């Protein structure tokens, strides 16, 4: 290893990056934009669900029941209809996502101490939203039932209404949300997205840099020179690696100052593991760039290998426990999961090396393995 040669390659690469101004600015802009767009864009809060009603009873009690939905911030009232078919059209056209049908004799039956049934129709195209909406509907109806039942018991047993209410709702659940008391979606999302952005951009920069030389043919200068494989790889990747390290700091500040996420862990520890993670993901890029010969193929392959697994198999959107066994294996074979644990552990839980060391070791192994494979796959004498 000759330090002077590494430096020469790195310097040449740095000048090349600087001269392509669009590329240079994108290298910093893209991660920031990705974090902000996705951080604000992926909102799993379900509110303002548009709904319409078919009220066949039109009584005092049915209006009272309906107002529990209208007054809720989870629903947004879009009016009454006269026929059930109208609800179908509105649902098919996505004008509403939820429809409520109140039957006739609604008031009559309830006042007579009999049960009645309402129909709720929910648009199930996006299952998560349908599930949450169903939960809201049940909660409103349960609440109504509790009061109606309490009235009934108070009347028939001769006790006060409060007593009756306590009697029929004896058990209460007090949830305590650890690590994110106010359940802010942006806290988990923004910090978690550091994992996604640092999964995609470092390999993207790497493949573009390396495969460009291959496609242009300028890599033959390298093949013909005295520089060794290792020196070339190190020198070539140094500038891209540095850009990604600067991006770690930029992204971290955005998560803290723009999304107001807390950081409870040790910043130095987190920076160190982030650098380790960037070494991993740069290694993925390096491996890709020795496998393919055209830039289009390289860029697409990077997208394929990084985006979907990091989004869906890391625990960011859905918990790993809900994955099947074979996909669990996939999740463990990928560095994103370990880094996400480190990220949430550092940002939200305030954990350090003691609790998280296993993940750091996994990343180290991963980085070492990737770089060795990449090194072995790079030849100065390309076989035809």
């Amino acid at each position, binding site marked *: 290893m000759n330090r002077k040669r590494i430096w020469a390659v790195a310097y040449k690469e740095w000048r090349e990056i600087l001269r392509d101004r669009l*590329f240079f600015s*994108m290298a910093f802009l893209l991660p920031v934009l990705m974090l902000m767009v996705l951080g604000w*864009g992926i*909102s*799993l809060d379900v509110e*303002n669900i548009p709904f319409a009603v078919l009220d066949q009873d039109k009584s005092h009690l049915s209006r009272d029941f309906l107002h529990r939905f209208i007054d809720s911030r989870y629903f947004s009232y879009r009016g009454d209809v006269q026929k059930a078919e109208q609800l179908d059209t509105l649902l*098919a*056209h*996505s004008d509403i996502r939820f429809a409520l049908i109140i039957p006739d004799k609604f008031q009559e*039956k*309830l*006042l007579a101490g*009999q*049960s*009645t049934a*309402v*129909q*709720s*129709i*929910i*648009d*199930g195209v996006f299952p*998560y939203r349908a599930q*949450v909406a*169903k*939960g809201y*509907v049940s*909660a409103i109806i349960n609440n109504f*039932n509790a009061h*109606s039942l309490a009235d*009934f*018991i108070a009347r028939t047993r001769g006790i006060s209404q409060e007593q009756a209410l*306590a009697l029929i*709702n*004896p*058990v209460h*659940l*007090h*949830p*305590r*949300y650890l690590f*994110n008391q106010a*359940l802010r979606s942006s806290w*988990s999302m923004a910090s978690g997205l550091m994992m996604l952005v640092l999964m995609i951009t470092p390999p993207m920069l790497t493949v573009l840099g390396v495969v*460009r030389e291959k*496609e242009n043919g300028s890599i033959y200068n390298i093949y013909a020179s005295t520089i060794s494989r290792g020196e070339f790889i190190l020198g070539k990747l140094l500038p891209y690696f540095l850009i990604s390290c600067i991006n770690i700091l930029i992204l971290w500040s955005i998560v803290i100052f723009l999304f107001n996420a807390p950081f409870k862990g040790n910043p130095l520890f987190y920076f160190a593991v982030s650098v380790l993670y960037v070494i991993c993901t740069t290694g993925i890029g390096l491996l890709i760039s020795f496998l393919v010969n*055209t*830039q*289009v*193929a390289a*860029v697409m392959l990077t997208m*394929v290998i990084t985006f979907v697994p990091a989004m*869906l198999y890391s625990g960011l*959107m*859905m918990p790993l*426990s*809900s994955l*099947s066994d074979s*996909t669990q294996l996939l999740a463990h074979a990928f560095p994103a999961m370990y880094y996400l644990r480190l990220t*949430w552990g550092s940002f939200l839980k305030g954990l350090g090396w003691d609790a998280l060391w296993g993940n750091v070791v996994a990343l180290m192994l991963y980085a070492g393995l990737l770089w060795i494979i990449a090194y072995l796959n790079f030849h100065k004498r390309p076989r035809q």
Partner: protein
Amino acid sequence: MSMQRTALWWRRMAVMIIKELKQLYRDPVLLVIIAYFFTADVYLAGSGAKITLYNATFVVIDHDHSAASRELIYAFRPPYFDFQGELADARSAEKLLNNGEILAILDIPNHFQHDLLQGKPVALQLRLDASNMSLATLMSDYSAELVGRYGQNYSLQQLGLSTEHIQTVPIIDDRHRVLYNPNQTDSWFMSISELLTVITMLSMMLPAAAAVREKERGTIEQLMVSPLTPIQILLPKVLAMGLVILFAVAVSLYGIMQPAFHVPIQGSTGLFFAVTALYVFATSGIGLFIASISRNLGQVSMLVLLIIMPIILLSGAWTPPEAMPTGLRYAMYISPLSYFIEMGYGILLKGADLEILWDSLLGLTVLGSIIFSLGIWRFQIQ
């Protein structure tokens, strides 16, 4: 005369389309990647992801050890919950929670059964790992409902009003029906969403790459001096890539999504492919525009990534229009994907036809023509 000229025009187009297809065919790695996108990638997206509550791990600290407390624990049932056992002390439970090995701790107090029988209110505590916010929401909603129902049944039984006599109490029975995806199968939503995203990316990337490669290698000069008009140079790229994409969509739909996930095709298949073709045309306009302002593929891919994210964000794939701030809701009109999503889900899951989708189709046609003309025009003035 004009007949001859039209024939010549079309022959030149055909030659150019064949040239593009050959060029694509000679990059086997790229072909494999395109195939991967439409098969394995769609499969992975559809098979892994569940944002529904499933196998949520929890432990219980039971201070009561009564029949009532056991019955309550039994209510936290699979497939939603995964009971990991009882622990004696809070410290070891919290350690499991910290390390992410479990997601929740349920705390049942002393005298739980005793208080229930006395008709006294009882409070249970549920500590949740909220670092994953969507999961914590689902879990606490489910648990609250379970516990509420348990308590109500318990006391109704005490009062002699068991659920068998439901007719004789004044309550509302909630009969809910979930339309278009009755069992709320996540794989339907996820695989369709992934397919639409893949179409967006490839229909932008492939024509843009084909165009900028000619610039990068200098072969564009050859084409410029040939008798071809700029449209005859650019349109074949779009048509060739469009053909490949439509073919791949068919493979994905009939080879992956139907056999593996049983995604229903409720509406007309012809309409779906027609709409897809229109959409590919519209987004390839964006690709050509990007190619016209870039000098090399590095720039193209950065710009594609940069533009594709707002397009996906404003499409309603993650956040439906009603949940968007008002300003962004209007911005959705300029994202071609928002129309495509509406029509894609509409045709595949809702069985919608033109009578319902005509406004989205009109929107996509107008927007697509504007984008495409802009792309061609920008290339022409170079």
